């Protein structure tokens, strides 16, 4: 690992990431996770329950956003606590006819929010935006550091 608790400071940026996604990514997540709710892949069904369109699984966004932390800390097992609230849905447009064109883009930035030297942990606060709106709120990952 490259990150050491002794050199960390509260307020320190850990970097940023851009996640471009398509409806195919939602189908892949549905299959891998077992969450087959049609609001994540069927336009007519999503609209029928009052959604603006097909939306990403909240758990897709949560799962993808934490990669910024994993890559920064250098070991996925260092993430000992991770939580979020889901506030706004990520609407994913159908770009099947435009290969390579994302249906939605999620932007993730992270900052060190707290350090606990006794427990040798740090809390990373994530800001997760899509289409100009916060889609995750209180997205916090606690990592154990050497």
């Amino acid at each position, binding site marked *: 690992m490259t990150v050491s608790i002794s050199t960390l400071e509260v307020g320190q940026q850990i970097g940023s990431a851009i*996640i471009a996604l398509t409806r195919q*990514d939602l189908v*892949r*997540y549905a*299959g*891998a*996770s*077992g*969450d087959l*709710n049609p609001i994540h892949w069927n336009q007519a069904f999503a609209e029928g*329950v009052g959604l603006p369109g097909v939306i990403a699984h*909240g*758990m*897709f966004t*949560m*799962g*993808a956003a*934490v*990669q910024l*932390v*994993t*890559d920064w800390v*250098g*070991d*996925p*097992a260092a*993430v*000992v*606590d*991770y*939580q*979020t*609230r*889901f506030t706004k849905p990520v609407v994913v447009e159908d770009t099947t006819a435009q290969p390579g064109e994302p249906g939605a883009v999620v932007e993730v930035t992270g900052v060190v929010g707290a350090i606990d030297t006794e427990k040798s942990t740090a809390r990373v606060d994530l800001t997760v935006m899509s289409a100009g709106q916060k889609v995750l709120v209180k997205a916090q*990952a606690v990592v154990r550091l050497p």
Partner: protein
Amino acid sequence: MTIDPNLQGRSYPAGETYSVGREAIRDFARAVKATHPAHYDVDAAAALGHADLVAPPTFAIIVAQRADAQLIGDPSAGIDFTRVVHADQRFVHHRPILAGDQLVAALHVDSVRAMGGGAMITTRAEISTVDGEPTATTTSSILVRGEDQ
């Protein structure tokens, strides 16, 4: 459908064992666009001191949602799945989930709160190995929207 007000405090014992496979970890990692080699390459995981492939931080949702299905699929609970919205989620890892783990999850309904015409239900899955070693605690709140919401 109405939510059973006595749901709070209900528990569902550990159900079927979930066997964590290497390919399931690789597939889930790809699905959340995780590129860390410890999810894919046993040698890379070993270099970090792990006995096998390391699951991504949210992998436990697979096990937790299987446990949740016991509640949501329980007709006596009165939950209409088509009206469910995921409100919040937390994972506390007691140790990393690795390929080869045999996991079970006991589900607890921690709270039920009326919200408008619907309800906010918070569940907790205590995930452990079949040998009883605590692995992860996941907490999830779902909003079951009322008929007019």
